[in-house]
């Protein structure tokens, strides 16, 4: 019975390289650097501060959502409804400002609350009714997008006050304004995940939910918080997006869920839960955005870019699993 599984295995093979070099995130960062150098060599416009900062601007909307998504995937869950929440929130922002006549700051608060409520609904059904996250969020993916389309009636809202475009289009201390938002969010998320009891609970839940429960961790409350947070950040992302593109349409954020999950998984977070870092997600985000941009600047067509990104994802998964085997000494 247990004789086989509980043998203390001999120690993993002698380490010739330091452990941190073998980490998925480090490997990915190295690949990223190589890609930067190669793409920079191919096109002189790529490795310029202006271009890189602009790419940061473009990746903020996906990045803001990727942070709570990292939390969720670490617990072994998933949230596919984030793209639809972006669309839903964008529409609510325009609608509440134009039709309800809310002052814009109030409309923004209302939008953020609506995003949080959308995420809360996901969380409450997942924890109380025990619907698997995949199924629940596929359902709300359709639901929230449908609401967005229903409310907007295919009309877009434009003509926001000038100050609102600051977040999406201006610079603060020479850096795109929304990038500050993302940077702060990254630092907070990284500290929460690495240093707090909340972060520790996420890993424990992802590795063994039953044991986490039996250890007295508030498993359901933690899950409710992260799905709510995911909705909130999708709402924030919607505001940034609307500010950047100056209009709201119901198809905004379409397909974001896949970009977000790709960045998180590329960054080494295990889709089975229990493993992952914010730092990995950040490298994953940068990788995808810079590959897209670098290839585009080098004259690679859009279709080919997607092929390259898909290939990079597969390769990184292979590297990750071979590293995993190596770590476990099998």
């Amino acid at each position, binding site marked *: 019975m*247990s004789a*086989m*599984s509980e043998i203390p295995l001999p120690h993993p093979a002698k380490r010739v390289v330091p452990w941190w070099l073998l980490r998925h995130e480090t490997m990915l960062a190295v690949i990223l650097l190589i890609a930067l150098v190669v793409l920079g060599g191919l096109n002189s416009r790529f490795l310029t501060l202006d271009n890189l900062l602009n790419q940061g601007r473009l990746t903020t909307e996906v990045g803001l959502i990727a942070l709570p998504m990292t939390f969720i995937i670490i617990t072994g869950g998933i949230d596919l409804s984030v793209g639809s929440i972006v669309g839903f929130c964008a529409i609510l922002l325009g609608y509440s400002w134009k039709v309800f006549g809310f002052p814009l700051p109030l409309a923004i608060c209302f939008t953020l609350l609506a995003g949080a409520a959308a995420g809360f609904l996901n969380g409450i059904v997942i924890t109380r009714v025990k619907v698997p996250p995949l199924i629940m969020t596929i359902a709300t993916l359709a639901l929230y997008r449908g609401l967005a389309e229903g409310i907007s009636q295919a009309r877009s809202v434009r003509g926001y006050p000038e100050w609102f475009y600051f977040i999406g289009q201006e610079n603060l201390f020479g850096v795109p304004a929304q990038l500050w938002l993302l940077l702060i969010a990254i630092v907070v998320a990284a500290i929460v995940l690495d240093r707090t*009891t909340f972060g520790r609970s996420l890993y424990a839940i992802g590795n063994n939910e039953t044991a*986490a429960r039996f250890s007295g961790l508030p498993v359901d409350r933690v899950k409710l918080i992260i799905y709510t947070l995911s909705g909130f950040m999708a709402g924030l992302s919607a505001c940034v997006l609307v500010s950047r593109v100056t209009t709201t349409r119901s198809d905004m954020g379409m397909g974001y869920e896949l970009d977000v999950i790709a960045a998180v998984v590329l960054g080494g977070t295990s889709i089975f839960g229990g493993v992952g870092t914010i730092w990995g997600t950040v490298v994953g985000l940068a990788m995808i955005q810079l590959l897209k941009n670098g290839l585009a600047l080098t004259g690679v067509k859009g279709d080919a870019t997607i092929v390259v990104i898909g290939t990079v994802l597969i390769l990184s998964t292979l590297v990750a699993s071979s590293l995993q085997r190596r770590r476990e000494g099998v």
Partner: protein
Amino acid sequence: MTTDPHSETPAAPVLLVRAIEKSFPGVRALSGVSFDAARGEVHALLGENGAGKSTLIKIVSGVFPPDRGEVLVDGRQVDLARPDDARRAGIATIYQELLLFPELTVAENIFMGHVPRAALGRIDWRAMHEKTNALLASLEIHDLRADRVVGSLSVGNRQRVEILRALSQDARILIMDEPTAALTEYDVTRLFDIVRKLKARGVAVIYISHRLDEIFEIADRVTVLRDGAHVATKRVADTDAADLVQLMVGRRIESLFPKITVPIGQPVLEVKDLERRPLTKNVSLTVCAGEIVGLSGLVGSGRSELAQTIFGVTPADNGEIRIAGQKVDIRSPAQARSLGVAYVPEDRGTQGLVRPMTVRENFSLAALGKVAFGGFIDRGAERKLAGDGVKRFAVKTSSLEQIAGKLSGGNQQKIVLGKWLANGPKLLILDEPTRGIDVGAKAEIHRLMGELAAQGLAILMISSELPEVLGMSDRVLVMREGRIVAEFSREEVTQESIGAAMMGSRENAEKAA
């Protein structure tokens, strides 16, 4: 110590296993084990967890080959490279987890892989049902229909389907791995009826069980394994329970269970009329400071369910719980923890330990509040907590950053115990605290329990091992079908009295049948 296993074979052995050796990386599972079984014989295989029983039957059923040694069926050597080879040789194995297709019918399950064929390779459904009915009739099973879907059957009936499946392949050697572990007492009597019929038909049955009373009821001979070696083979009529236990553990029981007598203090846990359907019915009990109360009963009698109700995993529907005299309404493990209740669960791998996480992280998991300030974990305090735990419980680990799942079962159990004691609980509920761990670690855990009780901790210990219950407990409670049916003091308790209380309803079932 070793007696000749072949000295008293009742008839020519249909199965003969000679000098089997098998090693896995880092452990020698079997060293020169011999074993045999004769036609019409029930031969019990006995041993502690890790003694090599499972390895032996896996070799005989072709799951993996031995490193050395041979297996003979009807005197001819057979090469059992795959499970299919064993099936061809007439060996069938019924594992604890039944391997059936829940969506298919009884008949389809029985004939899966060898269906009767009609012309053009079509399935001959008529023949399949007729054969199934014939099999059912031959074992005098009248309450099982061939067209029932297996998923809708009780565990006992599913097990019967597995037995029929074995018979449909003309198995002459039937291996049963702890067949009664998940059965109700009524199903156990029915299983024994079938085993007796198989015996009468000349099938050799190899019967693995931890329950000594079953061995005395059903087996003809018994072979005891310990630490991968053959210890003894005896006729059941020539031995008794104490003898078998001593053969299994290899030392006097007394030396294993050093419960120190300490003064018993105030009640820590008082439970009155606790209800949580379906398995906790009207339970009342008290555990005092310094006291170890043993909770005995068969698997499925509701012991773990009771513990998890007290611990708030499945909160009570009715009844009253008092902790240190204070009436409490425990709705979650977190709340139980803050009230000073600790629960070391039965299933270490899925409930107790987060195996992929490190020793340090496991130690602090239930006591994160102790090492965190304002939600931020103090790494230094956490390392100290884990380091102290490793020292106090003598956990053998290369470092605090070792992955907990890679340690041995005994060391894992010490971590689970340690992570709860880090909280300084008043009441410790231990569910099968020494299951599946080696004898040395077991003795250490028993020693710790004695120490903790001496420090004034109240301990409620659930255990299926009667010697452990007898050795460690100040008082013994026996559960049956969700109720506490008997209570014994340390002085009056015996293996027989616990056994009788545990089984109670089996005799009733026999009378009813």
